[in-house]
Each structure stands twice: as structure tokens, then as C-alpha cells.
């Protein structure tokens, strides 16, 4: 099976190439593009299933079950060597299933959603390219191949967010995403450099390959400070890619792209790259409790922070965007606590229900002929039933209602927070649990607010729109149904012990991400179950509260918004003015420095000056030399004479 490892990423690349050719020349019909675009991903999915099947039968219980496929030696510079190689073990096996599986559903959905868009070939070329880059990221055998995928998904994100680039705002959103990502990538690169440098300096044979690093780190004497620095720098990259504080600002703006793009890139796959990276490098992170604590705290803070913003937004996609930021916070909380496989589990379930939610919102927008403001929606549940039911199921999952996949993964994270190991988590676990729990309740509230405002009550969008509301075609509905089903039953992947489950996912991942961090429970078994039940009660209470506020008594939201002088509401509605702060503090100074100093002085005077100066110098020289050629014979004779005397003198003196 190793021979076919490279086919998994290369098939979508081939699709991208063909569709790209179609985009440039317009030679491919819509149907051809759809078939090519979806088939390559489907094939990759089948291969991914086969690979995982084989992994399951390799080794003993996931111990050292991995497949490596080296294509060629990429870099060989003295003692530094990097191969272009792919590595598939249970961890990346899970990721490729998610990427190709959910990816295929989204490709299928796109054929319906983009049915009226003239740039269909370009779209499919880009999402195929994205799939390739993402697969490269998770299948990379070493940090450099992963980084290539990392950059590639950033590029594709830019291309797809700014897909409708003729609208300046959308193009600007794409630019913003790329630039903010770049800031994170800079941190990532620095982390790579520091890692390699410290390892090389400690006398070991430094390598960037994951398997090599895992072995190296156990034996070589690298200081904890260096490891902490590396982990934190790499985490900076993760905050950029996975939209955590402080580099999350691009994600809400990224909703300018087509909705399937939001589902694929900004819910299921690209934004999870940071979580994958931390899980992949778990052996590094467990060496630095400081870094782990930072990751956990940033994750928890982001989870709560983004949830507070989601409470007040009116654009259906923006609510989901902030929800994504918040859920990613949970994933980082998990890996920060040392519960790597719990984080991965939440990644998987989140892919299911968030993709379903985004695709559902796309379906709603499609029904509303492009309207995205939920204040103009309402009462849609009778008109677009499939969309309504799948959306509701996914919302129930994200809220963490008992039995759903969201419940299984989120609850596990919260349980781990409560039992955080003080050796690895330097802040009290119960504090993180509290923040996480509050965030979960907020999540429930704003998600159900979204459901109630969109699907219940009276239609507030006007007569004209109401006539056009229609259910989406099968190509859009089928993925919704599949994802909704997965959101419900996906929890069975990893039912926790406390509920007498088999914890299958944990066992699957145990070879790669050993739950090295032992739990240190501070509450007993019974108390834990009790807290779980309490949280469930509170969740249902929140749902009831949302129902009351938005359906029974619609005057309540305005009243609540007015509390405390309307300050909290305004702050939340305006995203805590973070974009404005960034603009004032960072963007404008950079602009003015660039314009005033760097452009007019360095660029024009020094760089242009030296290039023009060279040209001027050459012109002066050639003019000077040109004057030698007068055409007058006597001048030539004179120069012969001068030369002759010079030679004579030279020879004579010698």
C-alpha cells in the first residue's frame, strides 16, 4: 500500500491541474469539471480508507504502525537533509479520512451551490489544490513537507476567500487572511529554525523528520527553555492558521468566500492544522509544561471570547465563524492539557457538525437568494425541511446534548480539564473547566438563537423573497444528511470510559499520541458524573432561555442589550473593536513607515538610486570612452604613440 501513498495527495493535484487548464482555456464543460473535481477526491477517500484498513492490521494495537513513502531526497546540504516523504500512521490516517471524506461531501455540495457561477472551473481547481495542500500537510513525514502544505493551504485560502475578487471587500478579506496567516507562519519558521539549531548544537544529528525528532528528543540534552521557545513559536503559527487569539481576525472576514469554502477550509480542515501540528509534536510539547499551559490558556480564553462575540452577530455565517474560533479554542485547550487524542476527537466531530452547519447555512442563503442577515429570515422550517432538520441536528451536536458526537468530545475535554495534571498544567484545572463550561453554555445559547431566528417565527424578509424560498437540489441536500447523521452517531467513535465505552479512537491513536499525561482527578467518579448531568441540565435550560427570548418574548433581547448601559452589548457586537485596534496600532504605522521612510527613502533613493547610478556610471564611462573614437587619424596615431612609449618603458624597466 505504500506505493499508493503518494496517490492520495497527487490525485487532487491532478484534478487541480486539469480544472485549472479548464479555467484558463474554458475548454471544459461544467459537467466535466464537476466530475473530475469530485472523482479525484472520492478516489483519494477510497485510498485513504484502504490505507487505514491496512494500518489497523499492522503491528500490535497501533504500536509503531506506520507507512513511510519517500519520493526523493529533497535537500541535502552537508549535515542537513530533508526528504520529500509521506508518513501515514493512525494520527494522519484519521486526518486523511476527514479531509477526503468531508472534502468529498463538500465538493459534491459545491456542484449544486456553484451551479450558476461562471467561474466554476477556477473554483474546482482551487478546492482541489487546497485538498492537495492539506493532504500534504497532514501526510508530511517531516516538518518541512508539513510546512509546504501549511503554506499551500494558506495560499488556497487566500485564493478561495477572494474568489469573487471583483468585489473589493471580498478581495480585501482574502488579503487579510493571507497576511495574518503570514505573521503566524513567520513564528512557525522561527520555531523550525530554533528547533534545528538547538538540536544541531547539542551535538545530535539534527533532523526535521517526525520519527527522527521523536527519538532525538528523548536522548539529547536540550534545555527546557529551548523546547519552550520552539513550542511557543510553533504555536504562534498555529494561532495564525487556526484562528486563536491574537491572530483570529481573519476568520470572520473569510466568510466573504463561497459557503462551501467556509465549510471546507474554515471549519473542517485548514483551521485544524494547528491542532494537528501540536498533536503531531506531542513529544515536544510534553517536555515543556509552560508551553502546554500557554496553549491551554489561549485555547480556553479564545473559546470563551469568541463565544461572547457570537452572541450578538446577525450574519448567519459570522455566527458560525465565531463558533468555529470558539470550538478551535476547545481543541487547543485539550491538546494544551495533554489530552491529545481528545483534541483530535473533537476535531473530527467538529468537522462533522460544523461542516453540516456551514453547508446548511449555505442552503439557507441559497433559499434566501443570497440574503445572509438572520433578522430578515424566519419561519423557514416548513419551507426548507431538509435543511432545517439537518441544521437542527448539527446544532444539537454542537451544543453538546447527551448522546451526540459533540457531547462525547466536548465533555471529554471538560473532564480532562477537571482532572488536569499539575505537572503539565500550571494553572488550576477547575478554572479551565469553568471557562470551558461557561463557553459551552454560551455556545448552546447563540447556536439556538441562530436556529430560532432563522427557522422559527414569522418570515421577516418581505413578500418578494418569500416566494423564492425553495429547498436546495439533491447535490446539496445529500451531504447535509450524511453530515447530520455523522454528527449524531460520530460520538460512538470514542465513548469515554466513564460511560462504559470502548474509547476506540484513543486506542487507535495510542501508538502515536500516547496519553502520556496522566489524569489527576480532583473529584471522584460520582462527582464527575454529577457535574456532567448538571451541565446537561444547564444546556437544556439555556435552550429554553433562547426559546423564550427569541420566540416567546421577542422584546427581551433588546432589553438585555440595554443592560449596563449597553456597553457589553456594543462591545460584543463590535467584536471588542479588535480590528480597529489592530488597524490603529499595527496596520497604520506600518503603512506610514512604508510610505514615508521605506518607500521614498530606501526604495526610491537608495535602491533605485544605486540601480540608476550603475546605469549612469556606465553611461559616463561609455561617453568618456566614446570620446576616444574621434575618427581623426592623428588622434589614433597619438594613442598608438602613447601605448608604444608605455610598453617601451615597461620593457626597459623590467
Amino acid at each position, binding site marked *: 500500500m505504500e506505493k499508493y501513498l503518494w496517490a492520495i495527495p497527487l490525485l487532487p493535484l491532478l484534478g487541480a491541474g486539469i480544472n485549472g487548464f479548464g479555467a484558463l482555456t474554458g475548454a471544459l464543460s461544467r459537467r466535466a469539471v464537476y466530475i473530475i473535481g469530485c472523482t479525484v477526491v472520492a478516489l483519494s477517500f477510497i485510498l485513504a480508507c484502504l490505507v487505514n484498513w491496512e494500518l489497523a492490521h499492522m503491528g500490535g494495537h497501533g504500536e509503531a504502525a506506520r507507512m513511510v513513502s519517500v519520493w526523493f531526497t529533497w535537500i541535502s546540504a552537508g549535515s542537513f537533509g530533508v526528504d520529500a516523504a509521506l508518513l501515514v500512521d493512525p494520527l494522519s490516517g484519521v486526518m486523511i479520512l476527514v479531509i477526503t471524506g468531508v472534502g468529498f461531501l463538500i465538493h459534491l455540495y459545491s456542484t449544486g451551490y456553484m451551479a450558476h457561477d461562471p467561474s466554476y472551473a477556477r473554483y474546482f481547481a482551487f478546492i482541489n489544490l487546497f485538498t492537495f495542500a492539506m493532504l500534504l500537510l497532514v501526510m508530511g513525514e517531516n516538518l518541512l513537507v508539513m510546512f509546504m502544505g501549511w503554506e499551500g493551504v494558506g495560499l488556497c485560502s487566500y485564493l478561495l476567500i477572494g474568489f469573487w475578487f471583483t468585489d473589493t471587500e471580498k478581495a480585501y478579506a482574502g488579503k487579510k487572511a493571507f497576511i495574518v496567516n503570514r505573521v503566524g507562519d513567520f513564528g512557525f519558521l522561527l520555531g523550525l529554525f530554533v528547533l534545528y539549531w538547538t538540536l544541531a548544537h547539542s551535538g545530535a544529528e539534527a533532523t526535521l523528520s517526525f520519527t527522527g525528532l521523536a527519538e532525538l528528543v528523548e536522548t539529547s540534552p536540550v534545555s527546557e527553555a529551548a523546547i519552550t521557545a520552539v513550542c511557543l513559536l510553533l504555536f504562534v503559527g498555529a494561532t495564525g492558521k487556526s484562528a486563536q487569539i491574537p491572530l483570529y481576525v481573519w476568520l470572520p472576514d473569510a466568510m466573504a468566500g463561497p459557503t462551501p469554502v467556509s465549510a471546507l477550509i474554515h471549519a473542517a480542515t485548514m483551521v485544524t492544522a494547528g491542532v494537528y501540528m501540536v498533536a503531531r509534536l506531542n513529544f515536544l510539547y510534553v517536555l515543556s509544561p509552560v508551553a502546554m499551559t500557554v496553549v491551554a490558556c489561549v485555547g480556553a480564553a479564545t473559546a470563551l471570547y469568541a463565544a461572547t462575540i457570537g452572541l450578538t452577530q446577525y450574519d448567519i455565517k459570522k455566527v458560525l465563524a465565531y463558533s468555529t474560533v470558539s470550538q478551535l479554542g476547545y481543541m487547543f485547550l485539550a491538546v494544551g492539557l495533554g489530552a491529545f487524542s481528545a483534541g483530535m476527537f473533537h476535531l473530527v466531530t467538529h468537522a462533522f457538525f460544523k461542516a453540516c452547519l456551514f453547508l446548511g447555512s449555505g442552503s439557507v442563503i441559497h433559499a434566501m437568494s443570497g440574503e445572509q442577515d438572520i433578522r430578515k429570515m424566519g419561519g423557514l422550517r416548513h419551507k426548507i425541511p431538509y435543511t432545517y432538520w439537518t441544521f437542527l441536528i448539527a446544532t444539537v451536536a454542537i451544543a453538546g446534548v447527551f448522546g451526540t458526537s459533540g457531547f462525547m468530545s466536548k465533555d471529554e475535554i471538560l473532564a480532562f480539564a477537571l482532572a488536569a495534571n499539575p505537572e503539565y498544567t500550571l494553572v488550576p484545572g477547575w478554572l479551565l473547566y469553568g471557562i470551558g463550561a461557561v463557553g459551552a453554555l454560551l455556545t448552546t445559547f447563540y447556536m439556538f438563537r441562530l436556529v430560532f431566528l432563522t427557522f422559527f417565527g414569522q418570515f421577516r424578509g418581505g413578500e418578494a423573497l418569500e416566494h423564492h424560498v425553495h429547498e436546495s437540489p439533491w447535490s446539496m441536500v445529500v451531504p447535509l444528511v450524511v453530515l447530520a447523521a455523522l454528527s449524531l452517531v460520530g460520538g460512538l467513535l470514542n465513548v469515554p470510559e466513564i460511560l462504559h465505552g470502548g474509547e476506540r479512537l484513543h486506542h487507535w491513536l495510542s501508538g502515536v499520541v500516547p496519553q502520556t499525561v496522566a489524569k489527576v482527578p480532583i473529584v471522584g467518579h460520582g462527582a464527575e458524573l454529577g457535574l456532567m448531568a448538571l451541565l446537561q441540565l444547564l444546556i437544556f435550560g439555556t435552550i429554553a432561555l433562547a426559546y423564550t427570548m427569541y420566540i416567546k418574548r421577542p422584546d427581551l433581547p433588546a432589553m438585555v442589550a440595554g443592560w449596563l448601559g449597553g456597553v457589553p452589548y456594543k462591545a460584543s457586537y463590535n467584536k471588542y473593536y479588535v480590528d480597529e485596534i489592530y488597524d490603529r496600532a499595527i496596520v497604520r504605522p506600518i503603512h506610514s513607515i512604508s510610505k514615508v521612510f521605506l518607500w521614498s527613502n530606501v526604495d526610491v533613493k537608495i535602491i533605485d538610486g544605486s540601480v540608476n547610478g550603475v546605469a549612469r556610471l556606465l553611461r559616463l564611462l561609455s561617453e568618456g570612452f566614446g570620446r576616444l573614437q574621434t575618427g581623426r587619424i*592623428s588622434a589614433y596615431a*597619438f594613442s598608438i*604613440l602613447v601605448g608604444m*612609449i608605455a610598453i*617601451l*618603458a615597461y620593457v*626597459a624597466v623590467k
Partner: protein
Amino acid sequence: MFEQILFYFFAIVAVISAVNVVAGKNPIACAISLIVTLGALAGVFVLQDAHFVATIQVLVYAGAIMVLFVFVIMLLNLGPEDLDKEGRFTRLKGVGVLFAMAGAALLIWNFADYSAAMARIGPGYGGLEQISGKLFTEYIIPFEAISVLLMAAVVGAVVIAKREL
């Protein structure tokens, strides 16, 4: 003694006429001065027992080549010209060149050694027999080459000066 006086006489005449060749205004005057120089040099040759050379110097150089020069000057009807109009810094250049050459000469003089004794020569030295003996045996190839060269020169001159090609 007598030899020395004669040598100095011929040398000074040669130099003065040479100066006139270089600095003379009228081209005819330059040509005549050159003839005088050639004659003086022929005298110097005789003093060095180079009789054959002296003879052909007068016959060929002064007699044929210079006559050709005079022909052409007359043909083109060239009049006297002003040395000052001959471009800028003429006098300066001339003096400069002379100084440069003097410097070069001194430089070479410093490193060269011409103090070897004069060889003893036999009675037929510089005479026709000795010269032709060498010419048609050792130097036969240059001799033939020269004749080819002369033929080429004749053909070239005719072609170049034709009225229509």
C-alpha cells in the same frame, strides 16, 4: 678626425632638414627638405662603408620615391598651409612627443650596452659582390617575397587610383 667632421656635418644637415619636413608650411618645401635629408643620410652611409646602400638610397629613395611625392603634390596643387590651423595644441603636442621620445631613449640607453668594439672589415665590405652574394643565397626568399610585394603594390596603386573602378 676628418671622418668625424664629415659625420657631424651630414648629421646636422639631416636633422635640420628633418625639422623642416616636420614643421614646414609648404608641402613642396617639406618634400625638398626630405630629399636633402635623404642625401645627407646617404653621406652618412658612405662614411660607414655602406656604399651599395648609399647608392640605392640616392637612386631609389631620393630619386624615385621622392619624385613620386613631388608628382602627387603638384598634381593635387597643394598650397602652403597654416600650422596653427592644424588643430589645437599642435606645438605643445609636438614638444611633448619629443620629450617623451627623449625620455624613452634615455630609459633604453640606461639599460643598453653599445660599447662593443667595432669589427674589422675587409676591402669588399659593403660592396656589390658581398651584398649580392648574401642576397641571392641566404636571403633569397625575402627577395622573392619583396618582388611579389612590389607587384601587389603596383596592382593596388593602379586599382585604387583609377577614375572608375
